[in-house]
């Protein structure tokens, strides 16, 4: 559990930041039909926010103040323990870099898939501890390629975590005999209004989330797992991420997303066992069998229309989020971590719509990252948010939340969801004899 002691964020959070949305969803307009709220409206709501700020302290959501839960971030070079009741990389303090990969399983043979998961587990144990895969990157037979690709040699473990998930397609009838073991919560995500999903950036039988403080360490990990998997799995798509967009370490500055806003002020704290049990970890009473101790992961590639956003007036930008740009304070409040008063915000404000109070308490744990994949063919920055959310039951968390955002969020004028995937993330690997997914396959 030591890897989970670093998370110290406030506990009421949700998807503030560009975590979700739909373009042109009919929000009130300032610049024409179907665009963001009008300036007048924004100012009006802002004024209301200021006026009502005084009574906001009574918010029903319990916040764990960062001051009370502060734990020093681990040395960035340290190793995060791989074994435990839950997989590392979920409640673990968010690292600086991401390499996320979704795989298709190409073998039809269940035994080959099981063998792969065992091999992957052993490789993950070594890599997260800072060791090379197999016999290493040098010193072997000169005629043969080395077991390890070598680009992480000499680098510290860099708090690498590797987290595996199983996609709905893995449970398809006639594939691996898993059809009756598909968890109910592992739903096929509905089509949300405004989605423009690219099949080549969506789905996957397996996923591995690699997070590390050094990008080379994260890339190395996925590269070696992909190589080990060849013939049994093939990478379907992958995403590099930088600039974590969810703070779990409030003693550090809250990072900003690509829109320049502080993102992740509110999130479930890695130390808040009660909140994790309630909102993130699948519990025994969920009667989910092999998923007990696991979680459900939604991954969304959210493209931002950077150029148009950069032309949006400051007031509009702030009102779209419901926070100010400099301090990150909620509308009408002075400090970033002040309790938001939702009614002070526009009904289309992102923070308001994403807040648990607007969603019957639905809460997710976010670990998203910014991405920039160069430019598209039109010279536009291909950038945005690679949204990652963990939850106990996607049907009760991401789905209703995203429905609300897709329908009303003012941010939708500036973002578009272009990739989507859903995974059942099994519980942790207990020890050296255990392996990723054992409870599912035995």
């Amino acid at each position: 559990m030591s890897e989970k002691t670093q998370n110290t964020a406030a506990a009421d959070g949700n998807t503030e930041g560009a975590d979700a949305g739909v373009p042109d969803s009919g929000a009130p307009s300032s610049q024409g039909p179907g665009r963001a709220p009008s300036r007048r409206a924004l100012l009006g709501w802002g004024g209301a926010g200021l006026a009502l700020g005084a009574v906001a302290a009574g918010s029903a959501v319990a916040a764990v103040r960062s001051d009370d839960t502060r734990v020093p971030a681990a040395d960035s070079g340290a190793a995060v323990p791989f074994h435990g009741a839950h997989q590392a990389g979920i409640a673990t303090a968010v690292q600086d870099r991401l390499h996320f990969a979704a795989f298709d399983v190409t073998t039809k043979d269940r035994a080959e898939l099981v063998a792969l998961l065992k091999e992957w587990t052993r490789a993950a144990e070594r890599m997260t501890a800072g060791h090379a895969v197999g016999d290493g990157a040098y010193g072997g037979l000169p005629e043969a390629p080395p077991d390890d690709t070598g680009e992480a040699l000499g680098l510290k473990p860099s708090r690498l975590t590797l987290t595996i998930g199983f996609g709905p397609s893995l449970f398809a009838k006639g594939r691996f005999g898993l059809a009756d073991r598909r968890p109910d919560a592992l739903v096929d995500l509905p089509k949300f209004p405004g989605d423009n999903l690219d099949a080549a950036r969506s789905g996957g039988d397996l996923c591995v989330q690699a997070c590390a403080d050094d990008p080379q360490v994260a890339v190395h990990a996925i590269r070696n797992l992909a190589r080990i998997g060849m013939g049994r799995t093939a990478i379907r798509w992958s995403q590099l991420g930088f600039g974590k967009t969810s703070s779990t370490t409030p003693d550090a500055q809250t990072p900003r997303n690509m829109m320049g806003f502080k993102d992740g002020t509110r999130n479930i704290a890695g130390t808040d066992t009660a909140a994790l049990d309630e909102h993130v970890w699948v519990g025994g009473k969920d009667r989910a069998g092999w998923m007990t101790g696991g979680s459900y992961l939604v991954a969304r590639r959210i493209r931002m229309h950077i150029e148009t956003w950069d032309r949006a007036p400051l007031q509009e930008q702030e009102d779209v989020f419901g926070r100010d740009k400099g301090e990150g304070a909620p509308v009408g409040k002075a400090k970033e971590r002040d309790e938001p008063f939702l009614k002070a915000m526009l009904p289309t404000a992102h923070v308001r719509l994403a807040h648990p109070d607007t969603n019957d308490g639905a809460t997710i744990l976010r670990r998203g990252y910014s991405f920039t994949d160069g430019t598209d063919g039109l010279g536009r920055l291909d950038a945005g948010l690679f949204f990652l959310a963990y939850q106990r039951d996607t049907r009760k968390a991401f789905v209703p939340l995203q429905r609300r955002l897709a329908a009303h969020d003012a941010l939708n004028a500036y973002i578009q969801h272009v990739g989507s995937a859903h995974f059942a993330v099994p519980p942790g690997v207990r020890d050296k004899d255990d392996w990723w997914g054992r409870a599912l396959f035995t």
Partner: protein
Amino acid sequence: MRAVRFSVVTAAATVAALTAVTGCAEKSDGKGEGAVQVIAKDDSCELSKTKLPAGHVELAVQNKGSKVTEVYVLFPDDRIVAERENIGPGTKATITAEIKAGSYEIACKPGMKGHGIRQKLEVSGGTAAKRSPEMDKAVAAYRTYVQDQADETLPKAKLFTDAVAAGDIEAAKKVYADSRLGWERTEPVAESFGDIDPKVDVREDGLEDGQKWTGWHRLEKALWQDKKLGAEEKALAPTLYKDLLDWQKRVGTAEITPTSMANGAKELLDEVATGKVTGEEERYSHTDLIDFKGNVEGAEKSYELLKPIASKNDAALAATLDKRFAELNKLLDKYRKDKTSYEFTSYEKVGKADRKELSDAVNALAEPLSRLAAAVTK
């Protein structure tokens, strides 16, 4: 086409200084003392002696047959120690070589083709290099394969280059891919002759400044994109044929070892992974899948010949390779009419998802294939 890879298969000329034996064919009267008399006929190859001391060896050849012949002194793995071509009926020739102790073969090739009529030659004295008979067997069989591929390619190449020279676009298109198959099957060996590959198999983007574009792909562009054969193209056809003749003549001298065979097999898959699966290799004719199949067949041949050694050292690897070859071949069969046909689907008609599937299958095979070299050297 790519740069020469000396690490894998090296032309004999490059390593001559390192080999235990050097050979040369020279004109002499053949009357030196201790010369081995070789009587070459249309159906026999008689040696006056089959046991010799190491050192300077002279073969005095008489062609008593009716066909032009050639005589080779061969290593146990079929590499050429020395050879003499174009020995006309009723004429004589002498071959000399410095030979260390070991087992060799003399081959007379009436009509200058095929495996030839073989005789054993034992050379003793000095220190014989220790060799593994099963490795020699694998290498010899692969060398024969490589030579056969070149021998079979030349008549097909002739059909192609003749059609181009005659300005017959349709006839040339028809035999284009077929004329390349033998080359594709043995590409790492063919490429080991660094001077031939840039002449016959270079693509336009592979040219260096000032390099004249010749070879198959130059004509491919004329046939499929320009859709015309001008004087320049017609003149390039016999050049291609001449360059391929050069390959056919020299291919037997390539340095081949069990590890170079194993890594050569992997390189054939690399060719697929970098050139064919992307559609770059045959960008005008879209015959990439035929090359693809040729590369896989060549790799499979290497593997089959090495399998007796590999499966002893690493049975699990051999089992994986058997499986992956079968899977890739099965996938390729989806793109041709039947399992004997070399008429494959035009690659421009292969969609993105199907290309990904082919790419994944290539990776699935190439990754374990990269461990074959270790398995044969254990």
